[in-house]
């Protein structure tokens, strides 16, 4: 084992690296670079927004969405369609991400866990501004100098509320 300071420094560096990755990730949504955003997911990656607090099962209980890459692609291709009525005019969004915690990677596991908190503002001209927020849970996979998302779970604080239509991913 090396100097204990080395481990602390390594943790700091990986946390910073993960933070930068996540800031870029949610920024792609704000910039409407949906195709680039999907490319951050692993081939078998999933993107999930539960409809219940503490929901641990996306199969037996409904969710706001639970998308594999194919569904993500369908969902976001729709946002490019000239007659996507629910998004005329389109939303402007601003994601902020914080409280990023990187779990110590398990050398045996393919992916490692990251949790964070987020706030997303959603403004559709003529419709007032809405705010969404809650917790992100990721599993990330190291891929060269960056990461791939094995799973992203966005649990809204009010995930079980009666929502108006939500079109832009969190």
């Amino acid at each position, binding site marked *: 084992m090396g100097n204990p300071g080395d481990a602390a420094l390594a943790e700091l560096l990986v946390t910073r690296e993960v933070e930068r990755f996540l800031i870029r990730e949610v920024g792609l949504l704000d910039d409407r670079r949906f195709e680039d955003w999907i490319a951050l997911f692993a081939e078998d990656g999933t993107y999930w927004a539960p*409809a219940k607090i503490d929901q641990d099962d996306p199969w037996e209980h409904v969710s706001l969405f639970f998308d594999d890459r194919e569904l993500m692609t369908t969902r976001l291709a729709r946002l490019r369609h000239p007659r996507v009525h*629910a998004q005329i005019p389109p939303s402007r969004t601003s994601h902020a991400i914080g409280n990023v915690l990187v779990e110590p990677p398990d050398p045996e596991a393919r992916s490692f866990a990251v949790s964070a908190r987020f706030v997303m503002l959603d403004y559709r001209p003529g419709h007032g501004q809405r705010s969404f927020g809650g917790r992100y849970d990721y599993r990330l996979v190291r891929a060269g100098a960056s990461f791939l998302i094995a799973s992203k779970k966005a649990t809204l604080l009010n995930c079980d509320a009666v*929502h108006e*239509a939500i079109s832009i991913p969190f």
Partner: protein
Amino acid sequence: MLESGGGDLSRLVTDTRVHRDVFHDPAIFELEMERIFARGWVYVGHASQVPEPGDFLCTRIGAQPVVMTRHSDGAVHVLYNRCGHRGVKVVAEEQGNARRFVCMYHGWTYDTNGDLDFVTQPEGYPEGREPDRVRDGMGRIARVDRICGFVFANLSAEGPGLRDWLGANVFCLEDLAASAPDGEVEIAGGVHRYMYRGNWKFQIDNLSDMYHPAYSHESSSRPSGRQFVRRKGDKGGIEFFEKRGRVKSMDPLGVSALPNGHSWQGGLPRIENNSDIHRDYVARLEARHGRERTREILTKTRHNVIFYPNMAMQELNPHIRVIRPVAADLTEIFVYPIRLKGAPERMFREQIRILNGTHSASSMVQTDDVEAFARAQQGLATTGNEWILLAREGPETLDHNTGRVRSIGTSEVAMRNHYATWLSLMSRG
């Protein structure tokens, strides 16, 4: 504007037109809550949502908070959610289990059938003034009845029974139950909830509308002209466009109007699905019903079925949708998956997956519908033309046994039928 109840209203509905006040006027909305929701049969919930004694589920009948309970003797009751003492809403949690309900204000305590169990500091009520177990209880709703577990309630003791009110729609519930290999269904897998700033009747009308999909939902179609594939093993998504972008008519599917405002979409073509899950399901049905009856069950004769005024059911991807009016221009919709008991577990997972994509607040289909409902409310703020037009029609056939009128898919006959019923319910004194 509305001046008084009754006769005035007949000018709001003609053979082919409905006046904008029907959607906009808060006084009309108040009257709807009284004459449609507080005097007729309204869907409340499913018995499987309160399986054990003490289980309860809070909901509303029109504007009134109610609680559906399972009493210690196994009976399902629907209670007014208010204390007999000073009117405070007693049950605050949406769902749960309780031996008794205790009012937060002065501690009055009720049995799960709504009867007053005991009053705190009873010495304050001398002889002749003691609260009465029933009169001062929470109050049971006058009539509660159920079919295949689907619980309906009627605040009024007057008028037809549930089966008479539902007519041929009873078969829809029975067919749904028959499509479960164990012959029973249950509500499972949670609830999708969404709301929109528009009138509740827009959702009802939309559920009998086969004219809108290619236009409203175009963004969910692919360059092939078909919508995304919903169920693994399906041959393709719903066809919106034929070659050269021409809209494919849904006329051949048909739409039906039934007495009392109920309606159906479809028949639909027989399910052609080649997945192993579906084959497993078919095998289980055949084991129970035999081949011929199974074939009948799998030929879905209806798509959305409306139980006027507040529920719609779908058999193809089994779920029910409950319409909860909040104000003339605000509506909540709750969508509950239905589990077919005895069907393969993986089939329910498929249902959940499809419903996420079509019916959640962030789905790829429903979002366009609620946009249409909100824009209808906005558009009807204009006064240049005070009417909406429901004039589309096609050849009609009448089934004398059930009173069902069937027409072409894009006919607005079902909507005209909704408003004929609306007028007759609203005009009762």
